């Protein structure tokens, strides 16, 4: 439902100039349906449409006005129409339409790709050439996981957990599949923990259908706020040199501030020291952790751990 508060003239007008052509096209619409479509309260909708029904051209006789009336929970349009014209699509709307088209095409199970593409060709007049691209990975087991979400089939998976650098075997019931920031995830009931968990699909190392099925529950796909409220996390403050800027583009940061020399000061939420060790080893001298104190020397400890392996064995053993 829409938020309440005084609505200005421009907001009301904008709403009406989108709603009226939509309504004219349909002739008769249930008030509750139309309010839901336009995310308004029924009271606001009726108020605006009553206002529009008083508008038209001079001298404002009944047949000079927009022919709208409300009857038995329905809004109806008569033969004398006004305001059929659509506003130009705003840049915000046109841009977002381009985003939707690019992203939807990569969603597994989106079976209408051909129709979407032919729609875009027809909309080229307002969208121009397609110059928006949403990059999304296509991990190996994405289709299998998506199929399982739809069928309810339980899956045996081997899953790699980077925080512990371990692979584990689990049986999961996939509840939903979603992409966020270019990566694909599944929300699944996990036999290993007995909880609903999120798994990154590109970290599934092996997958086997079980032939067992669970009832499919159609819940709204809930895309989580990663890490921010997870237990057992540290907020790490670090200084990142320009050549290691890939860190902020690969991992979610709580805050990023750029310095005049191109280096970055970042805050990121870290759920395991092992995960942080991997990152700082990979970045080398490109990152230095400045807080919290117990992680300031994480790079040194991680490097020592690896160096021990090199120094304790011969190269060709």
């Amino acid at each position, binding site marked *: 439902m829409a938020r309440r508060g005084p609505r200005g*003239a*421009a907001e009301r*007008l904008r709403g009406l*100039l*989108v709603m009226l052509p*939509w309504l004219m096209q349909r002739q008769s619409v249930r008030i509750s349906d139309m309010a*839901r*479509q*336009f995310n308004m309260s029924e009271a606001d909708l009726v108020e605006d449409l009553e206002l529009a029904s*008083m*508008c038209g*051209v*001079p001298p404002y006789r009944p047949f000079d006005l927009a022919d709208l009336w409300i009857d038995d929970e329905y809004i109806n349009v008569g033969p004398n129409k006004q305001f059929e*014209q*659509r*506003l*130009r699509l705003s*840049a*915000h*709307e*046109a*841009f*977002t*339409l381009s*985003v*939707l088209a690019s*992203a*939807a095409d990569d969603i597994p199970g*989106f079976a*209408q790709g051909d*129709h*979407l593409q032919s*729609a875009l060709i027809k909309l080229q007049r307002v969208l121009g050439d*397609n*110059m*928006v*691209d949403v*990059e999304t990975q296509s991990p190996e087991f994405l289709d299998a996981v*998506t199929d399982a979400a*739809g069928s309810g089939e339980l899956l045996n998976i081997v899953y790699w957990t980077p925080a512990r*650098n*371990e*692979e584990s075997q689990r049986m999961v019931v996939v509840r939903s599949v979603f992409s966020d920031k*270019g990566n694909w995830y599944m929300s699944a009931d996990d036999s290993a923990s007995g909880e609903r968990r999120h798994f990154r699909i590109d970290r599934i*190392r092996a997958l086997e259908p079980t032939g067992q099925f669970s009832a499919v529950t159609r819940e709204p*796909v809930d*895309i989580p706020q990663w890490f921010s409220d997870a237990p057992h996390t540290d907020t790490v403050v670090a200084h990142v040199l320009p050549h290691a800027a890939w860190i902020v583009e690969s991992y979610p940061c709580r805050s990023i501030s750029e310095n005049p020399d*191109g280096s970055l000061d970042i805050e990121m939420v870290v759920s395991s020291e092992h995960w942080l060790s*991997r990152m700082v*080893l*990979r970045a*080398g*001298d490109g990152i230095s952790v400045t807080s919290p104190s117990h992680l300031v020397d994480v790079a*040194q400890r991680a*490097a*020592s751990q*690896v*160096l*021990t392996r*090199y120094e304790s064995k011969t190269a060709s053993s």
Partner: protein
Amino acid sequence: MATADPKRATERMLNLLALITNSLRPLTFDEIMNRMGSQYPDGHEARRTAFERDKKVLRELGVPFTMKTLGGADAGKTAYAIDKSGYGLVDFGLTAEEMSALQEAAALVQTGTTWGKQAVLWLGGDVVDSGALTASHVPADGDTLPVLWQAIASSRPVAFTYHGKSRNVHPYGLVSRNGFWYLAGKDSVRDSQIVFRVDRIDGNVTIDNDSTFVRPQDFEITSAFARDPKDFVESSERALVRIDGGVAPAVIRELGDEAVVIRHDDGSVDVQVPCANLIAFRTWLFAMVDRAEVISPPEIREMVVSWLREMVEVH
């Protein structure tokens, strides 16, 4: 005053729109006031001010108000009309299946705004709940992206501040990658194609409406990025790396069976990987922390050891 009441102002602007849209010829300010006078405040200046404000609001909403200077008996007077080529019964001829595809796309892709759903309504479609078990989250809010899109669509240069420096750019396209938006275009001062991260643009983006540019015909948005320096490149230079059993299956899946040189009884494997791109090699190797060890060639092993010693000493 009429504009103090949003309802009255809305009603007046709708009437103004209806009057000009239905008129067979452009109307002057005086003609408009003669027909709508009671809806505007008294006094010429107040009327003119309110009329200009209404015109501005309608234009900002996308109504293509045009002005024309008349000749003849009305010489010099300005008359107002609606450009019906840009505003009218737009029929894109979308089929039911095409509209359904757009509605489904708007339902499945979450951008953090309602603009996509508004666009579907604008096209005459419905906002639907797809009931699908899949979704895609592509944050695309704020005003910067639509302004850049507008400049791209109209092939107009843009100016903005980036890293504290003023940039003039021919914008070619927008790419969402790993949760960030990037603008690909030609920096007209450096005369080279460059990629800007949109969230690092300081302040507003200004479109230069007085000039246009031509995008190179061979520009492709999907290949706008330079190769990721962390990607492997094929080369004959290879390192032999021992991978512990716990992570070996994953590495074999990544590199393929052909990369495996030796399989040891304890489950560990020796694999050959390209090492010409040292950044890529280091990033790949240390993702396994102490579960991978370079065996040969000696100079690469020494280099890894020196990297590690440096980290132990410097940090």
